[in-house]
Structure formats: structure tokens, C-alpha cells
């Protein structure tokens, strides 16, 4: 029995875990987990896009903006082009016809009180998509 025992490679597998556990992995895993959680919570993946806001000179009102198309966005969701009530499609065709004649046509966007920013941005987007290069935002009259 004894000579058979000594020839088995039993000492090797017994000693290997002792040398491996010299460096403990648990604190490393802890730190890496904490770093992971930090970066997951602190990072943002929002894809920010910018809209250039061209404002006419301060003090300009709708009436004094010479030759510009005035687009009003009203609180009930309707649009007005130079005082005439229109829906989005009619406004788009009017504006694109005007832009075909004068590509540098200035357009003034005037949201009324109670209009959410998203509604104004939607109209602004549509006007820019039609090819308008000079779209500026104004408000009715500063209180």
C-alpha cells in the first residue's frame, strides 16, 4: 500500500490552492463593482443636439420686423401665418412657396403665452426642414 501511495501525484493538487490564494480576489471584485456602479449612475447617454437660436435685435416686435413672415403658435395648438389661421400642412406649403421665391426669407416665430417649448420646437423644426435659414423667436411684448 505504501509504495503505491508515494507514487501518486497527491502533493501537487494539495499545494496549488495555497499558492493561488496568496492574492485574494474578493477586494478587487468589490472595488471593481463599486466603480462599475459609480459609472453606471454618473454617466448619461443623452444624445444632445443644438438648435441655433437667432434672435432679432432686442426690442424688435412682430410689426417692426420688415418683410419677415410672422408665424404665431397659439395655445390651442393652431398656427397663424401673418394673422391667418392655418394648419401645419397649409403653413408648410405656403412657407415653402415663399422660400422658393426668396430663399433667404426671414421667418419670425412667435409663441403665445401657454405654448409649451416642445410645440414651438416642433414648428421650428418643420420650418428648418423646409429650408428656412433665418428663423428667429420673439414674444408678443415684454411685460
Amino acid at each position, binding site marked *: 500500500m505504501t509504495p503505491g501511495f508515494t507514487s501518486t501525484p497527491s502533493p501537487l493538487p*494539495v499545494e496549488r490552492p495555497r499558492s493561488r490564494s496568496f492574492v485574494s480576489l474578493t477586494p478587487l471584485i468589490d472595488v471593481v463593482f463599486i466603480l462599475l456602479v459609480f459609472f453606471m449612475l454618473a454617466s448619461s447617454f443623452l444624445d444632445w443636439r443644438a438648435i441655433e437660436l437667432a434672435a432679432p435685435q432686442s426690442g424688435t416686435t412682430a410689426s417692426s420686423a420688415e418683410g419677415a413672415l410672422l408665424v404665431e403658435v397659439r395655445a390651442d395648438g393652431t398656427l397663424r401665418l401673418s394673422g391667418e389661421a392655418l394648419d401645419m400642412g397649409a403653413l408648410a406649403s405656403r412657407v415653402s412657396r415663399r422660400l422658393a421665391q426668396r430663399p433667404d426669407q426671414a421667418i419670425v416665430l412667435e409663441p403665445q403665452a401657454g405654448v409649451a417649448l416642445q410645440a414651438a420646437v416642433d414648428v421650428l423644426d418643420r420650418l428648418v426642414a423646409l429650408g428656412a435659414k433665418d428663423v428667429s423667436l420673439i414674444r408678443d411684448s415684454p411685460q
Partner: protein
Amino acid sequence: MSRFSFDVSASGGAQDEDDRILPLINVVFLLLIFFMIVGSVSQVDPFDIEPPASDARETVGDDAVVVHVDAGGRLSVDGHVLDLAQLASGLSARLGRGGMVHIKADQGVEAIRVVAVLETLRGAGVQQVRLLTVQRPA
């Protein structure tokens, strides 16, 4: 004989445990590197702001002063809550060479509030103003 077999199974178990935890560490490391590279660590906004969506394609650098406007119309610059009158004086100190200002406004804020901020910025001599939006979901 019984002790011998116990030793072998114990050492094999410890090795298995290490081998089982190594893929976990690999994956966690990969996730960590992913979040470090892809995610941009952002300053925490003073207000909870849901930005408007738009089709604008221009991307945004981070070299501008950001004016936050929350859904109620409150303003803040660099974490300090201001009103419209304080905005002009508060900004002139912070504006660098470029003179560029980004407006980060909530999609639900009244548009005329943003226009009022815009007018104030123009009055303070800001050359470039941009409204920050996110890409419209497809």
C-alpha cells in the same frame, strides 16, 4: 484513504470556485470600461429637466455656459438658482472668450419664458445662443 480523497476534492473545489468567478470579473471589467468610455460623466442638474426633442443635427460641444430652465420657469446657472434680472449680471462674470451660451430647457416650459431668457442673454451681449435638445425618437 478517506483523508486522501477528501483533500483532492477540497482542492479541486477551490480551483473550481476561482474558475467560476473569473468570467464574472471579466464581464464586470468590460462593463466598467464600456461605461467609462461611452458614458460622459455629467454634472448633476439642479432641476429635473426633460429636454425637448428635435430633428436638429448639430452636435454639442461642452465649451459653453449652460442656463437651465425647468418646467416651472426657474433659472439656474452653474447650480445657482437665479431670476431673470440676476441672469445678465450673473452671466457676464462667467462668460469666457467665446461668449456662447446653451439653454437647457424643459419641454414643458412656456416657450415665451425661453424667449425672455433669450432676450436677456442678447441684452447681456451674448453672441451665440443654442437651445439644447435631444434627437427625436425614430
